[in-house]
């Protein structure tokens, strides 16, 4: 089906159940467009996002991975996003250090009321990743050449 279209990136968006997933729903109820190549996976809290999920997505062909969670201070579980913030900071920096473009990973805090922000974030992220092109690196950062 996608044969005739030009290349579009495959984006995995992890959204926390309480804020960002609801924000994505609100973007939907508001009929705010963002590209169809963004696929959302619901997790209870941004702190549930295991770096292995991100690596797995990249390795299986995702071109960009974004995590959306409640704004710092608003976490449903009170502290989850603070841990997520540190974990992602360290992970993104490490990926960058290994040559994976920083633009392919992102964290954005989106509240349940920020449907417009969700849509805008996704549009912007897709644009950034599209400019970076296809992700060949992580699938290929293997032990054997």
């Amino acid at each position, binding site marked *: 089906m996608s044969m005739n279209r030009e290349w579009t990136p495959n984006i995995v968006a992890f959204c926390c159940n309480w804020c960002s997933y609801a924000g994505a729903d609100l973007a939907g109820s508001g009929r705010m467009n963002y590209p169809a190549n963004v696929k959302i996976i619901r997790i209870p809290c941004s*702190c549930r996002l295991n770096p292995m999920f991100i690596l797995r997505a990249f390795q299986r062909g995702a071109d960009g991975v974004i995590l959306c969670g409640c704004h710092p201070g608003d976490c449903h579980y009170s502290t989850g996003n603070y841990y997520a913030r540190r974990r992602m900071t360290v992970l993104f920096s490490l990926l960058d250090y290994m040559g994976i473009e920083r633009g392919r990973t992102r964290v954005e805090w989106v509240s349940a009321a920020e449907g417009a922000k969700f849509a805008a974030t996704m549009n912007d992220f897709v644009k950034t990743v599209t400019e970076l092109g296809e992700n060949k690196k992580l699938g290929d950062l293997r032990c054997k050449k």
Partner: protein
Amino acid sequence: MQKIGVFVCWCGSNIAATVDVKAVAEALKSEAGVVFSTDYQYMCSENGQAMIRQAIREHGLTGIVVCSCSPRMHEATFRKTAVSAGLNPYMVEIANIREQCSWIHKDMAEGTEKAIVLARAAVAKLHKNAPLTAGTSPVTKRALVIGGGIAGIQTALDVADAGFEVDIVEKAPTIGGRMAQLDKTFPTLDCSACILTPKMVEAAQHEKINIISYAELDSLSGFVGNFTATIRKKARYIDEDKCTGCGVCTEKCPSRKGLDDFNMKLNKRGAVYIPFAQAIPNVAVIDPEQCLKLRTGKCGLCQKVCSAKAVNFEQKDELIERQYGAIVVATGFKPIDASAFNEYAYNDSPDVVTSLEFERIMNAAGPTKGQLVRPSDREHPHEIVFIQCVGSRCTEDAEKGKPYCSKICCMYTAKHAMLVREKYPDVNVHVFYIDARTPGKNFDEFYRRAVEQYGVDYIKGMVGKVSVEGKKLHVQGSDLLNGEQVHINADMVVLATAIEPDPTARALGTMLTASMDTNDFFTEAHPKLRPVESPTAGVFLSGVAQGPKDIPETVAQAGAAAAKVIGLLCKNELTCNACVAHANEAACNGCSQCERVCPYGAISYEEREIRSPEFRGVRRIAVVNEAVCQGCGACTVTCPSAAMDLKGFTNSQIMSEVDAICR
């Protein structure tokens, strides 16, 4: 292998307009494990649900995927449908093809393609689902209220009136708290004691309320519905049951060196004392620091004069262990120590007092019997300066003070100023203020009355310096509106000191695993929507322990906390969250990292006999208390060996979704 049914909803044209629902249902038929796939106009309708039930029975489905609106909308609906057809409710997955697909995409081909991917991801996840059962835990129908001020009393009364037992633990010898120390209350100027003491008596006489005074929480274990508290009842050297509160001992006690805490240390009291006339319990207490008998073994006069034989010098601290279903924190506040503010000469002159000290001076039962006199020479003052925001609204990095607004000072200062002017029209009253903050019913009117009717001189600006000059206090400050520096020779200076949480709050927060902010105020579960609950289940917040507030707000919050407690205690058992963390004992290192990130203190460790290929023997293993775990998953990521997993959102479930999306 699961036998999965896929149900694609049209949602009228909401989905069907941009997603080819038939193509989705068709495409999903070829997914591994899918034995049935169909579409229908409204899956959530009775007909739609009947269709699901029928398919479950006919095809022996082990799980269903509903491609429809957001799970936030109808997940609960479809779980009920599944249950009614004999499936476990957690064998249902929703593919959100409305909010996150049909509504945001205009192109049919694009929308259909994405809907198929989302449905595949749901199927992939469902393959790894396991039936979950939410546990239950019983509820002990008794509440513990920590703190016996107006907040604690009100919460206790409301909970007790609903028919539940309540224990109030108060660290002072009497309940009443700060409100008992106040003279009048704003904005109505009714006498504080007149409205508080009837409540104290009501609490004391309530058959469901048990007041444990002169006591503190020693330790706590358990979780919502099932707390076990150990309460340390300090030795008061007086038998509470025997003492009649006649007060003879307090008059005869030869020691007169103790400072009267109730009167803000403005006068002396005996070693044996009753804090104030309306104390509850109305029982004396012996201060072991001052008592000659306890210190030197000589004296014992009180014992001789006590006709009730209530004095017992052998009394020891007593530990009481009790079960509770809910805990209310009502630990209140204290004014900050003004001695750090020596630019206002607080340490240099007894005539510089804090507002709470002034409150006692103005009170008819206070050290001056309500006569407004200077503490230094007992002379009547003619010029009084009030300084607001002493220690409030300072930056975090300032060497002293608190970053927040203490909220009540503007109003009580207006009250003080008004009371002085009313009783002593000859006294000039000046108030230095930064902003007069009076949001509250009848508050601004009250403040304006102080200015307009009582002629209180409000000066916008702060005082830079107070110096003692002979018998006078030289006050130098800014008048910002006039653009000048003002100098006032005052007889008294009253400091509206900031308030801070009671010093016992921090240790209590640790004991309860209830989170606190950097100022040691207890944090609420949600700042707007759950303002009287702590994030720790079963712990509720009442009064200033949560943040600065006045009496009406405190009473309102106390009632709200009580309503939450009643809502909890009237349940016979609690249904726990089914999506909880769980440690795989064969892989757990017992390294304690998960415990550190758990916001609920739900993880503990036990030594367990392990028999696995890698290890045989006794090892330290993480154990999740399912009644406490809320399922955030912080622990699962901290665990390096993936021993900790989250039911309903397991590593392999999420990995499968990732794989399906990236396929």
